[in-house]
């Protein structure tokens, strides 16, 4: 078992598919970096009014997280319906929690 | 809206008289015999929702009884296999829709009343009292009046009084069942609620948020008096001279003992705002001692000697040197004579 060298290779068709997938992943990564840079630049330069800046950077974060979840973590794939369901459930509970703590703790 | 509610209430009352009468509770303590605006609002909803609920319960119980009588296993049919019914769209729709309608009947007046009781628009031209909850006593500061008092809250009858409530330690809750529902008293946010008593009298108040060992002993009173009496009371309270010496000698001794033992570092007499311990300006007029004991000299002596035995966990225990029974009795004499006004819980009760 330990000396197992596993020379068996995935077939070439699969390899090609994996490669295409990987290219998409790299593109998402580049986009994520770009979004990050935009967010930092907006804040560092202070070009925007603070309400708008907050809105913008939050939206950028959401898009970025979408990339992570759907591409890097494959939530877009067909066989991920249960994981997706549980993530949506978690996100739903998360939104409620955030709304409560953010809005109705001080009055 | 009101008229409709009123009629409904009258109707429901008929049905529920037996129920309510049989278990009404103590006057001016129970929530079932409301004598204030807020308590009225709550009571209307209690009655309305009870009636709707009794209706639902009746439906459930009728079906239940029929089922149990008709479909119990019978002799000779032990092995009967009933038809395996999957469901019935119509029926299922019916028992989805009807509850929704019933709930709406409750929901609409609920929301109306909720907004009504949260209305702060009249606050600026009403009497405002700053309420502070403390382990285990209540402090009342009449805003803009230079009147401070503890444990007994005097209000004019038939007037909206706004309470601006904060806690100095843990969370408490201000509850006078017969006049109004409760409202929490938090340490970080001020809560505003208004109360309005419809009849003169002394109403029992209780702390309703778990606040420590003596939570069950953190009672207070709301003393509702006529507007004239109230003005009189405010006047009397404003004219208290904290330095004034009592008339008889024992009480005078009591006063100096009171000062020697540093009681004033926590308590206050007059309108100064010290709030570590209750304000004692009208102590002799109080309805009760420590919120729960009869206000007698003997009880007061016991309290001064060992407050822990009466209210476990209170903040007075251990704050002053031991006093002898004799000293305690002199201090008690002094305190019992702090009776600045003729307007008292007793006078309000009659």
């Amino acid at each position: 078992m330990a000396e197992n060298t596993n020379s068996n290779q995935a077939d070439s068709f699969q390899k090609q598919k994996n490669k295409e997938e990987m290219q998409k992943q790299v593109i998402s990564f580049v986009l994520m970096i770009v979004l990050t840079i935009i967010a930092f630049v907006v804040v560092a330069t202070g070009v925007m009014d603070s309400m708008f800046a907050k809105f913008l950077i939050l939206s950028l974060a959401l898009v970025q997280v979408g990339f992570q979840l759907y591409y890097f973590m494959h939530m877009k794939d067909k066989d991920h319906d249960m994981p997706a369901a549980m993530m949506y459930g978690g996100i739903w509970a998360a939104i409620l929690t955030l709304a409560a703590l953010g809005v109705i703790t001080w009055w | 809206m009101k008229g409709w509610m009123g009629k409904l209430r009258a109707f429901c009352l008929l049905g529920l008289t037996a129920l309510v009468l049989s278990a009404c509770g103590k006057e001016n303590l129970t929530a079932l015999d409301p004598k204030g605006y807020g308590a009225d609002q709550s009571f209307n909803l209690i009655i309305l929702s009870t009636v709707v609920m009794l209706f639902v319960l009746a439906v459930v119980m009728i079906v239940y009884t029929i089922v149990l009588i008709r479909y119990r296993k019978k002799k000779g049919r032990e092995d009967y296999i009933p038809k395996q019914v999957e469901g019935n769209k119509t029926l299922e729709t019916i028992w989805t829709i009807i509850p929704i309608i019933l709930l709406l009947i409750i929901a609409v007046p609920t929301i109306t009343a909720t907004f009504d009781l949260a209305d702060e628009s009249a606050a600026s031209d009403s009497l405002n009292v700053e309420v502070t909850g403390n382990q285990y006593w209540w402090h009342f500061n009449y805003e803009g009046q230079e009147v401070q008092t503890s444990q007994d809250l005097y209000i004019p009858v038939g007037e909206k009084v706004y309470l601006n409530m904060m806690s100095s330690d843990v969370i408490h809750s201000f509850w006078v069942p017969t006049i109004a529902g409760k409202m929490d008293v938090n340490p970080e946010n001020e809560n505003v609620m208004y109360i309005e008593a419809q009849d003169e009298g002394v109403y029992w108040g209780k702390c309703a948020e778990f606040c420590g060992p003596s939570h069950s002993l953190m009672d207070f009173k709301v003393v509702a008096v006529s507007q004239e009496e109230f003005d009189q009371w405010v006047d009397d309270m404003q004219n208290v001279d904290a330095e004034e010496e009592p008339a008889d000698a024992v009480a005078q001794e009591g006063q100096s003992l009171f000062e020697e033992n540093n009681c004033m570092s926590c308590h206050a007499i007059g309108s100064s705002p010290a709030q570590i311990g209750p304000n004692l300006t009208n102590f002799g007029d109080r309805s009760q001692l420590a919120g729960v004991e009869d206000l007698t000299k003997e009880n007061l002596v016991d309290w001064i000697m060992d407050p822990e035995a009466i209210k476990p966990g209170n903040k007075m225990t251990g704050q002053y040197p031991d006093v002898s029974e004799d000293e305690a009795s002199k201090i008690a004499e002094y305190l019992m004579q702090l009776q600045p006004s003729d307007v008292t819980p007793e006078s309000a009760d009659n």
Partner: protein
Amino acid sequence: MSIASAQKRGFGAVLWDYLTTVDHKKIAHLYLFGGGFFFLLGGLEAVAIRIQLIKPENDFVSAGFYNELLTMHGTTMIFLAAMPLLLGLMNAIMPLQIGARDVAFPFLNSLGFWLFLFGGLLLNCSWFLGGAPDAGWTAYAPLSVTSPGHGVDFYVMGLQIAGAGTLIGGINFLVTIVTMRAPGMTYMRMPLFSWTTFVTSVLILFAFPALTVGLFLLMFDRMFGSAFFDVGLGGNSIIWQHLFWIFGHPEVYILILPVFGIFSEIFATFSKKRLFGYTAMVFATILIAFFGFMVWAHHMFTVGLGPVANSIFALATMAIAVPTGIKIFNWLATMWGGNISIKTPMLWALGFIPTFTIGGMTGVMVATVVADYQYHDTYFVVAHFHYVIVGGTVFGIFAGLVYWWPKIFGRLLHEGMNKLTFWTFFIGFHLTFFIQHFLGLMGMPRRYWVFLEGQELDLGNLISTIGAFFMTFGVIVFLINAVYAAVKGEKVSADPWDGRTLEWITASPPVHYNFKQTPLVRGLDALWIEKTEGKGTPTPAEPLGDIHMPNSSFLPFMMSLGLFIAGFGFIYQVDYNWAYILLFGGMAVMLGSMLIRSVKDDHGYHIPKVELEREAD
């Protein structure tokens, strides 16, 4: 190993077996014993509470001790009695119902149990170490932060550990249901108890993290001087209330949904009818769970959140009455036209309908904000939640125990004693709690150590206490019954109630691999279908072959023990430096065990086909 050979083994061997077991059926036994033990403890605390309140200004217990009693009663009952008993029933039955040989993570399953047990023990150690927690089961800050002594610290550590166990259990059930259903067992063919197990686990998954965070904040404030709830440094105690109830309300549905499942099985079985409106029942369950997350602030109507928030939460709360009503009416419709036999499980189910309906009704009544200004924190609320928790969850646990006792232990309970338990408990229950509605409205707040003389609260409290004695009697009869069954109980066949679902095709109690061959499921009520349209038992979905089984392991016990020790370390490092030894030592035991687990491959073992053939039915 068959039961017979198990009985021949010595006590030590049996003990070791249970300490290391990863078999879901044995873990179920452990949960039932652990939960049962804590139920008695919580019950004892309840009886002490009731004795204190038997007359005005009683001094049976001191104020401080009363607060400890009521806190531990609530905490113990909810976290250490009701939930573990339900998890025990789920463990025992759900894998059988979906035709699985095991759960997805047998090792984690056992870890979940030991964490619960050690968490519960840690919490209860507080009794002997300077006093139990005394800030209520809700532990509202700042009272819980300022509470002197270590009581609340034990609350924090105990619940944290037990809560981790519950979370693990929840994930385990979820994955089991997703990946291990027998062929043909589609989601919409799952028995309702399995469905409610699934939905309950979802609730556990999303609700417990909020409690975890809340407990961490409380722990940091108490043990490490942070300022989350310290108003002086800008803290805010309302955060605790939100976090607690974001967990707390889903928690009450965690307590009720499984018993909805149990009753659904019982009504169908004892009416000899298919569950009416199965699809609606499933969706109602999901809806309740969904709404369950949007209503928590109904515990906070008097906090001062403002009329808008209060109205929204009131509406959401009332909405839950609709799916719950669907369930009640579907159960009635299941019985309608049936051939009802009233054995004890059915008796509990029949007792549940009116009781829970009343509890639900008072639930809707407390949801009407302005009326709740009166009800809140009074005995009306105490009455409400005991009607749903005792009249729902506890009745359901009793029903489930009586119903599945043959499957779990292979013996029948004595029917006469069963009935005696039911009637005394049922009557005692209503005596205790019905009157409390009125006590609340007559001005009796909850968590009151004493009520005063002359407030017309005496009679009600006396009746209430007498009721509690009836309940005690019922519980004691049940205990005797359990012992009686173990010693003299009648051994039973695989299917004593003429059941409808797959657990009844396994032996009573089931062999440790559950099914020799995984059954093929052809529809809802898989067994019933075979009884009425087939050969009487499902066709196997696979040829007889080797069965893969997990190995037993002592590591879950060690990991939990490590945390248990570390818990003391956390609590006492505030006062003593030596406590760091416990803290780091305990953590080392836990992490070391984790490391061993991850480094040592554990592929399990196989039961060879020949052996299975030998163990003929």
